[in-house]
């Protein structure tokens, strides 16, 4: 009988602390699947965020360093420059990357750091109780936009992929989602591609993942998944936002250089 699904060995036998219907659990599992299938567990180093994803070191059977809120891309830069042979990625939420840590992410992208950023966008600050995030949609109700997000008072949703796409150092930016099986498969491919590009020394890659947060959206799990398709994707269109072979210099001279790894493709 053909095995169609099994728990990745790199995902620890632990219960996720995530709320029912949350997207983080899927992203966590996908990351471990990809690292296992690409045989990268011996070189992978993950930088964990502050926010709902911060406890992922309890689930990952790979080396993990917790970063201060927003500093993931800077910490990953330090690790990668000191250890170019490692696969280095940061895991960051929308508040983390699109608000408090925008400078660190933006400049890591601009330098073409040979790292990958896994950016989970669920449009709210989850762990702190559902406040407005930089990616909260207009008119979306949160605990700090009780009448809905008003652009005059609170600005507009931040589209990180589109902003970073203007930077020559960013070479692969894709927006995906984890709200239905086909989307989850695409997300896995995007993560694998980002990691492969890092192994090939192609520079900064970022995968933005639209993820449901039923608890703070005050919706059911299925309704949340539908809302991503029907509403969230209008503001944050899915697809490859940028993919180029390299920036403005030969990638062999890229920061961190080409990483070593077996680099089996994962598709």
């Amino acid at each position, binding site marked *: 009988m053909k095995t169609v699904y099994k728990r990745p060995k790199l995902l620890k036998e632990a219960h996720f602390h995530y709320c029912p219907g949350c997207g983080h659990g899927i992203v966590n599992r996908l990351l471990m699947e990809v690292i296992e299938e690409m045989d990268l*567990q011996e070189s992978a180093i993950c930088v964990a965020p*502050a926010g709902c994803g911060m406890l992922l070191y309890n689930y990952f059977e790979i*080396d993990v*360093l*917790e970063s201060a809120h927003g500093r993931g891309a*800077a*910490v990953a830069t*330090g690790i990668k420059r000191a250890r170019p042979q490692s696969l280095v990625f940061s895991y960051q939420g929308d508040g983390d990357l699109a608000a408090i840590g925008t400078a660190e992410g*933006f*400049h890591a992208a601009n330098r073409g750091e040979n790292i990958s950023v896994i950016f989970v966008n669920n449009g709210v600050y989850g762990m702190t109780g559902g406040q407005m995030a930089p990616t909260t949609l207009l008119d979306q109700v949160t605990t700090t936009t009780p009448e809905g997000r008003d652009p005059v008072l609170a600005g507009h949703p931040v589209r990180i992929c589109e902003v970073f796409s203007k930077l020559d150092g960013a070479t692969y930016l894709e927006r995906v989602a984890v709200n239905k099986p086909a989307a989850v498969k695409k997300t896995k491919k995007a993560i694998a591609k980002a990691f492969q590009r890092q192994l090939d020394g192609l520079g900064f890659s970022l995968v933005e993942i639209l993820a449901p947060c039923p608890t703070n959206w005050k919706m059911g799990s299925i309704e949340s998944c539908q809302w991503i398709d029907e509403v969230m994707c209008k503001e944050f269109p899915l697809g490859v936002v940028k993919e180029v072979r390299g920036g403005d210099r030969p990638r062999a001279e890229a920061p961190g250089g080409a990483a070593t790894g077996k680099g089996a493709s994962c598709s």
Partner: protein
Amino acid sequence: MKRLMSGNAALGEAAVLSGCTCYFGYPITPQNELTEYMARRMATSGGVFIQSESEIAAINMVLGASVTGARAMTSSSSPGISLKQEGISYLAADELPAVIVNMARGGPGMGNISPAQSDYFQATRGGGHGDYKTIVLAPGSVQELTEIVPLAFDLADKYRNPVIILGDGMLGQMMEPVDFDNLQRPPDYEKDYTLTGAKERPARKIHSLIFDTKLQEEHNWKLFRKFRLMEQNEVRYETYLTDDAEMIVIAYGFGARIAKGAIKRLRQENLKVGMIRPVTLWPFPAKALRDMAKTVNDFFVFEMSTGQMVEDVKLSLEGRGHVHFYGRPGGVVPMPIELSRIIARHYIQAQAGGRRRKR
């Protein structure tokens, strides 16, 4: 062989010779010569240099490099050091070694770019949030700076804790003859905590989030015990003409050099003034001061601030002596003759009041 170098450049060279392979920094006066030196030097030594987008990014790059086992350093001046405090707190919590240089300037706020000693509290009280300390080394000359740097890297590795080198704009920017002939690269420590990929060992995690308050408390006490070891083993200070002294000047860093000039003048006038110069501002040489108070009644603190170390002097003496203070904040650097006149007035008043050496 002696070379004429600025303190900033000499510090950079000493860092490379001490095994520093990763430097991250952001421009700020008066420490730019160090960042510029590292940009050139790391290119030739094969090390890592990044001009970061901010002080915050720089200290977090240090954290990332440190976790791989590399000797990592960043530098800045007062306002930039404030920005680094977040990262220094995380380094202390994660028990990761790093060397952070502060070539201090006048403050608060933007202040100016002249030498000052007003970051003493920030440096010696941890500086960021939470219960922690950093070793603070305060060299007084460019040559001493080159001796302090390998020590700083060694102490950072030995205790797995950030170490601060606290200088000032004068020390960083003045040029003095310096040699590196006796600089010994500190030994490499067995590092069983580094993140290098889970190869032939279980996966590791390094984090300072400890939800369980009992575990957080134990972590705090564990750090505390480490800090107490530092207090027992790492106090460093210099004494100058203390044997017959009626009055002891306490000054550090460049301030101590000014004080030494003042004391030389006072000795010519037969005023028996000596000096204790703390080299480690934390841990502070409290016992040395208390011991001195067995024979001396008068302690004169000179700082280029409105008075910060003077509090540690009072805490150390626990009422055992009279504490005098003279401060010049805001980037003003007094001449030795000015300081000698102030000290002389305090000295003569103390003697007139009948205070003498106790034995």
